[in-house]
């Protein structure tokens, strides 16, 4: 098992946000975490990488317990995180943003170089020296993913990669995620857009009000229109 989360509970101050979250990701799998705005998708990701301080439960990455490690150590173990708000370093150029993410080669994960990433996201190669603040939303989204891949992760948490992007960019994003999968990166992708999730995912979990209320393959989900309508329809 690549990543296994059990009994994850998270809090923001007095507010209890996540309730007994359990999810698993296999080697090389793409798993979707589906749910509406505010369901707890981002908090789940932030808890896994240790950015939410008040949390309990067990998080195993590649068989090792990482639930008490600081964020930077979890990431250095090969668990990459792409935040929802993109959080590009706006004063830094594209190449400098990539440099911040650079980590040494890892034996069990594909090795990404700058040139390889510019092949994956051709738009970026045309603006290597442009400051992150002067890029479009889609370009910034590509840069955040590329920046995380510079750390040579074996698993990536992708928080709503399609949010706010034009259909054409979403298509490029689908291609990029499928390429990442082909290279051997395991991926957890949070989404509101079921159509987008279906194009890339093997399995899906549905999260609602901080609880996992469905887990199964995409075809199992398609067989349950009641679940889909209750938790995902807009």
């Amino acid at each position, binding site marked *: 098992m690549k990543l296994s989360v059990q009994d994850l509970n998270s809090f923001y101050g007095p*507010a*209890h946000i996540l309730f007994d979250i359990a999810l698993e990701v296999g080697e090389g799998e793409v798993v979707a975490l589906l749910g509406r705005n505010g369901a707890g998708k981002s908090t789940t990701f932030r808890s896994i990488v240790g950015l939410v301080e008040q949390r309990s439960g067990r998080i195993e990455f590649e068989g090792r317990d990482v639930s008490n490690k600081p*964020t930077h150590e979890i990431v250095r173990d090969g668990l990459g995180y792409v935040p929802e708000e993109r959080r590009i370093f706006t004063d830094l150029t594209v190449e400098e943003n990539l440099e911040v993410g650079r980590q040494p080669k890892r034996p069990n994960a594909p090795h990404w170089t700058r040139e390889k990433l510019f092949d994956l996201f051709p738009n970026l190669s045309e603006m290597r020296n442009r400051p992150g603040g002067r890029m479009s939303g889609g370009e910034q989204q590509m840069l955040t993913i590329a920046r995380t891949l510079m750390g040579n992760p074996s698993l990536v948490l992708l928080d709503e990669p399609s949010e706010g992007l034009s259909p054409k960019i979403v298509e490029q994003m689908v291609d990029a995620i499928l390429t990442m999968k082909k290279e051997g990166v395991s991926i957890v992708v949070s989404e509101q857009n079921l159509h987008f999730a279906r194009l890339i995912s093997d399995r899906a979990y549905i999260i609602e009000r901080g609880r996992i209320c469905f887990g199964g393959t995409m075809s199992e989900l398609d067989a349950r229109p009641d679940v889909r309508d209750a938790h995902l329809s807009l």
Partner: protein
Amino acid sequence: MAFYVVQFLTGLASAASLFLVASGLSIIFGVTRIVNFAHGAFYMLGAYIAFTLTEQFSGALGFWGGIVVAAAIVALAGVLVEIVLLRRIYHSPELFQLLATFGLTLMVEDLVVLIWGPDDLLGRRAPGFKGAIDFFGQNIPSYDLFLIVLGPVVLAILWLLFQRTRWGILVRAATQDRDMVAALGVNQKWLFTSVFAVGVFLAALGGALQIPRDAVHHAMDLRVIVEVFVVVVIGGLGSIVGAFVAAVLVSELNAFGILIFPKISIILVFLVMAVVLIIRPWGLFGKAEAPARRTPGLTVNPWRPLTSGERLAALAALAVAAALPLVGGNYALTVGAEIAIFVIFAASLHFLMSVGGLASFGHAAYFGLGAYGVAFLAKMAGLPMILCLLLGPLLGCVGAAVFGFFAVQLSGVYFAMLTLAFAQIVWSIAFQWVAVTGGDNGILGLWPESWAASPSHFYWLSLGIAAASVIALRIAIFSPFGYALRATRDSLLRSEAVGIDAKRIQWTAFVIAGTVAGVAGALFAYLKGSVFPDNLGISLSVDALVMVLLGGVETVSGPVIGAIVYKALNIWLVSQTDLSKLVLGAFIVVIVVVFPKGIVGMLEAFTQRRRPSSAKSSLVTSPIESAE
């Protein structure tokens, strides 16, 4: 003409050291968000250690090696400070960080006197730069030329470091978004430590390079920190280019200010700073900062006026205090009057800091202005004491109105730095304008008239005014004006959205606080019978901050308790030890790290815990089922 050129070059040479120190402060602030008050202390340590090393080692290598080694030693000390102290307070409010690093400064000041003695030390001349160069009949020390070249060289090195190295890129990224840098696998802790080391190295190098130009002495830390604060306020915190440009600007203003206003050259710097702040509040090269962290004053326990029982208790305490002349001798009464005066002073700062969220690091300016106001009126105009006490504080009021207008344009650390700079400017004027203020000798012979002359009468007068001031401030806190002021403290944007003119409210609060501080200063002048520049000095400003902090920043009655405990402790301490700054500094650091809530805050927390069914505890335990 040649004279002006030489004057210009002297200014440029002075700018080099100033730039080194200011850029170090800027770099540290950029990443850690801490305004390192101890930066001046590191500068001073650099100078002292370089002095010792260059005396020990001979030859050119000994000199230059000694300078670099001194800076490295101080940088190591900085690393120790970062690991032991700063890591504990990165998440504390800005005020606490400023105070903790100020506590360090106090400790270092006593330590250098302990190690190197109180006398000025004259360092070696720099080998190879001992002479002077003749320029149309004017002499320019060749060491000045070396410094003039060094400034831009260091700027270039820093630029390369930040643009061309991985470390520099990480630092720039962390300046913008620390958590994201951690989320990309970078260990923030060591990044912070290394940044602090580089910043401290620059400060110490700046100090070490001064030894061939200036005497090394134990007050050079405060002098440089004030100039550096002015430089970063003008240049913009976090900008290295800004630090360079502003360092040159300030040094040139100093160099030429002496020609225009020989007695009070610092006025020119003040005027330029005021203009810059009006045009670009975040400095020439700075960027507007979102108010990232909230200032202290966000209480869990909402403030409320005293209940009738508590009012009776307060009245009883006042009655007991008023009975002191029955048991105490003259010394006890004098100490009692001094404590009462400091209750007024602390309460006035509390009004600005806890109620208004504006932590002033130069509140003593208005205390001192009140004292000088009395001195001018009594000695020059010969007015009677009652009139002096009524009119003297007006000088504090006017000072607060002028400086407050500029200060409230800013917030957070900028506000703290600016108020400190203003106070230091007032101090310099009192110190340098000997014809009017008597300079260092002060104004003597200010004794109360016969009706207030006996210690018991003066004590009652002070106690009465203290009680009236505290009551008046409390009424203000719980008046609509006080609510509006607290609204601006808690959320500037929201308060403006409901129609509160935030700047005007804050300015008014600043003027009220300054006037009340002036009242305290007026009484103080009569208590001591004299007025000195120290009455508006930085250590008095910090005394007030510590009193408020000790009592509890987040409480209403904290300053009263804090002032009594602190002042009594302070008077006792000074009589017991010669190392009062060392003890006081350590005391400040311990309060900030261990008891950030203060005495009254701790008492409140204690009584809260004794009431088991409080609303607060039920809030914590009940799960709220809303996400994100």
